């Protein structure tokens, strides 16, 4: 009889402690979901478009939007001419995000190191480290060498 009473007490205790644990789990889940949704909807910081970082941001936004014409606007006239027939923009940007790593300015030239993280399912991820070269003419920074993901910028004769 005593054993039964102890068992009942144990069961009752278990039932009583279960509810607060379930509430805690629900609160943690809601917080994680809320944080994830907030991050998913949030836009990246905006950089000044007159700086090398700003030009790179404008260029990469066009790349991720698949807008080839807009992406050429951030390049020098000569480079845009070479890249307009490139097909490499069609590949490799789905599920990717770009992060600034390091900017180096040397008078009228600059390099912006970027990190591109690719992931199709949110768990498997691979990283590319790329550098974008820019030059300044008439107070405007422009990309001067084929940037990621253009790799076939050759002007057809």
């Amino acid at each position, binding site marked *: 009889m005593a054993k039964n009473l102890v068992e009942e007490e144990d069961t009752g205790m278990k039932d009583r402690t279960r509810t607060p644990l379930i509430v805690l789990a629900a609160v943690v889940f809601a917080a994680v979901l809320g944080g*994830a949704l907030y*991050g*998913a909807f949030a836009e990246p910081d905006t950089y000044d478009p007159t700086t090398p970082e700003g030009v790179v941001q404008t260029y990469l936004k066009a790349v991720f939007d698949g807008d080839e014409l807009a992406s050429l606007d951030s390049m020098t006239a000569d480079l845009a001419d070479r890249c307009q027939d490139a097909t490499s923009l069609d590949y490799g940007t789905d599920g990717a995000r770009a992060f600034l790593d390091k900017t180096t300015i040397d008078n009228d030239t600059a390099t912006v190191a970027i990190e591109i993280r690719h992931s199709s399912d949110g768990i498997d991820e691979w990283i590319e480290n790329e550098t974008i070269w820019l030059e300044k003419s008439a107070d405007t920074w422009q990309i001067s060498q084929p940037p990621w993901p253009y790799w076939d910028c050759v002007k057809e004769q």
Partner: protein
Amino acid sequence: MTWVILLVAAVAGVALFMSARRPSTESTAEQTGSTIRRLFQYALLFGAVVLVSIGLSAVLGQAVTINEIAGDRRSLALPLAYLSVGLPAGLLLARWVRKQHLRQPLEAESPAWTLYLSIASITSLIVFVVAALRVLEALFGAESYSGDALARMIVWLAVWAGHWVLVSGAPRQDRLVWHRLAGSATGMVVGTVGLGNTIASGLRQLFDQMSGDLAAANYSWTWRNAVSWLIVGGLVWGWYWMANAIRTDRSSRPFQGYVVILGVLSGLITALVATSGLLYDVLVWLLGDAESSAWKQFESVPGGVAALVTGLWVWWYHRTVLAPERSEGRPEIYRVYDYLVSVAGLVTSTTGATILLVAFFDTFSRQGEVAGSGRGINLVLAAVTALLVGVPVWGLVWLRTQRLAAGSGDETNSVSRRTYLFLLIGVGGTTALISLISVFFSVFQSILGETSNLLRDIRIPLSLVITVGSVAVYHWLVFKRDRVAYPVESSGIRSILLVGATEEVGKAVAHKTGAKVQILERSDDAEMLAFDDVVRALDGQTSARVLVVATGGPPQVVPLRH
């Protein structure tokens, strides 16, 4: 080349089958000699049958080809060579086998003969099915006419029919249950793919007409193709399953394994995957980064609905085939089913939770982000979908098995539950530890000044440590509780020799005592050992090795020297 592979597979299969057999009354030397002889005999017969069938198909294919403008008759050289060698060799072997079966009736009961019949029947069935699909597709106008396919269909149907006659006359029908189930599985797979595609192509056509898409594809080709699969699969399934397999012993392990794993489980998983796809489409349309029009967003709905309907039917039908489940002494296969469903639900929910956690950490590690392809919200919705589907599936099955485990030591100490727990503890623990190494690696890189954003680098391994690690720890606690609640009984007996017992009794005694059990069959008609009698007789035995003999009354237990 293919037949050589089939021949090797047949030889390997015979060898494996023989090695798994219990010893019979033949001496070991005699048995090995017979096994090797049978192995070569039936492998050669199988090779000859394949050669003749390939040769005949090619020759007949030339004869029934009607649309060829110019043909190269030299292509017949190899098939004719196959026929020239295979036909006499096959006839001689068949004659020899027939003579042996007439002289020694036990020959027809050998596992090698059963294996030959099973492999030859299933091989011919599969080749016939592939050819019949092509012929039917041509008949419905989905493909062009192929004389080769027609010839293959006729020849391999004849090969299959010949072997079916032999199968029907074989003395050990209990061993041929595998063959019937393999045929049923072939029919079910082809038939359900056909059923799913028939529904999907019909719905797609309807969908495109409703959307007014002028550039929409014409699905009548897909539909005709699918109907061919439905007809061929339906016929094979009807013959193998409805007319044969379902009439065999439903309590046998192969039968239950087929129904539970290939029927109930595969149907359930198909339906769940389809439900997830449909739910994800709706969530993305309502909250996510959706396509520009509803028609485009929901273009995978016909396929999803077809998979859902087909999966639910397969699940429902096979549930009705199974006898109602007993809570006491329920068969192990029910446990296998429960724990497999539980694993599927748990893996789905853990994947969802991990993606969600990665997205959560992402929110706090976006420093320096300049641009992204903007699919983040859809990834979060995919994680929510995985949780909405995975958690109820896992929760319902796991709570049920926990209730059963609380009331029964059989359930708690069952092989399925132990395997399930060890698998999750082992795989989960290993994954969590590897992820933890990755976290520490990034932390040390950060301390040494080589990382720009630590949280960004560790967000994935850290999420895996939390989710998969929790799974491993939780199941370790469950395992510990199981051990305390129902410790495995150990009788001190390490080896038991049962004289005159069935395999089922042997396995039950092994499970109960934890000892290694061997069985010897009696040649007289003495009463077989019963499980309860053996357990009662072994009670109080202290010897590590014992012999148990059926006597008609209580079993006689003889302690043996070490």
